[in-house]
């Protein structure tokens, strides 16, 4: 809409010039007011503990603010539709990034101290298809030690650098 002149300004012809949509100053001030309102709301909410809902609430408010900025300050509302398609595609790929990563990290097992059985930390159930991580770490440490003993030394991972996590 911003860049095609045929439809929106009623000129019968395309003069090749840029005719961008211009919003009024009060309109921009209104958007700014809404952004400040949401900021005060989210800071105020942080003093009230909603438990698990905290995260949801925070993301929701931030997304409202982000939408206002993208739609009006960044003109996506009245812009060439292609830019909107680009933007939404980008968001989809961010979604893919989150989904695939969390599908891994949320389902990693921890070794149970006494039984050495890999369990899911959230439920306490035995992890499906999990490897014996302790054995993996030990064999890796051994490999590194052998590598260093073999005179290769001076580069690469040291045993204590092995992932300390889970």
């Amino acid at each position, binding site marked *: 809409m911003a860049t095609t002149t045929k439809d929106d300004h009623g000129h019968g012809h395309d003069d090749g010039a840029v005719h961008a949509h211009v919003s009024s*100053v009060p309109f921009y001030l209104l958007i*700014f007011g809404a952004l*400040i309102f949401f900021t005060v709301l989210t800071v105020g*909410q942080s003093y009230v503990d909603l438990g698990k809902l905290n995260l949801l609430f925070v993301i929701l408010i931030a997304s409202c603010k982000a939408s206002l900025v993208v739609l009006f300050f960044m003109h996506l509302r009245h812009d060439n539709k292609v830019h909107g398609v680009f933007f939404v595609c980008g*968001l989809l790929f961010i979604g893919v990034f989150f989904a695939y*990563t969390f599908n891994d990290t949320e389902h990693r097992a921890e070794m149970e101290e006494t039984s050495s059985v890999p369990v899911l930390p959230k439920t306490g159930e035995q992890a499906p298809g999990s490897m014996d991580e302790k054995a993996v770490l030990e064999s890796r440490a051994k490999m590194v030690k052998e590598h260093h003993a073999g005179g290769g030394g001076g580069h690469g991972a040291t045993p204590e650098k092995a992932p300390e996590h889970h």
Partner: protein
Amino acid sequence: MSSSTEAATDHGEHPYRGDDAHGGEHGHHGPKWLAHHFDTPVQQYDAAKLGMWAFLIQELLFFSGLFVAYGVYRSWHPEMFQQASHQLDKIMGGCNTIVLLFSSLTAALAVRSSQVGNRNATSRYLIITILCACTFLVIKYFEYSHKFHTGLLPGRFFHPHDLHGGATLPTNAHQFFSIYFLTTGVHGLHVAVGIGVLIWILRRNLRGDFSKEYFTPVDLAALYWHLVDLVWIYLFPLLYLI
């Protein structure tokens, strides 16, 4: 050029496309800000904006890596994240949010002034935007120096002491501060780059490069600035408030 000239003749009189048809010198068409490989200003504007949006989306994907890291570690250690985030100053963070939102407003108004051809107003709004950006970095500096003094540092530099109300932090809280410094640091770098870009745009505006017909660089610089704001909109609550 020949095919586009033919197309142009279909439209009849054309302020930007007609030169070749009138026997003008090749490559000399329209105003000097119109690159000669574009037929019309609108074509140049569309191409520039599309390129800018592609860049902005790349920036979002880049930042999403940091947000994924935040999400993973937060989900692994929810209690540690909660305790560690209490060490951040909500008031300073909140002030920075308002400063950045305000700078986004003035950036949008700078573009608007440029669109309607008010060059002085554009300069004014750009200056306010730059000052806000500097204010943001100054507040950030105070926050960082406080973290440095209390040893709330990333990775192996983490050695907390003299915390608020004698609070103690879990030993793995260095993970939170690694993420805090990385995300806010990369964001701060973007703010610093933004200041440079805005100063450059201001200089060009003062020189008279822009007009109602040609304001693309102001528009694109503002888009970048809004992106910096956008990232902070998510960073602030995720780091400071929960």
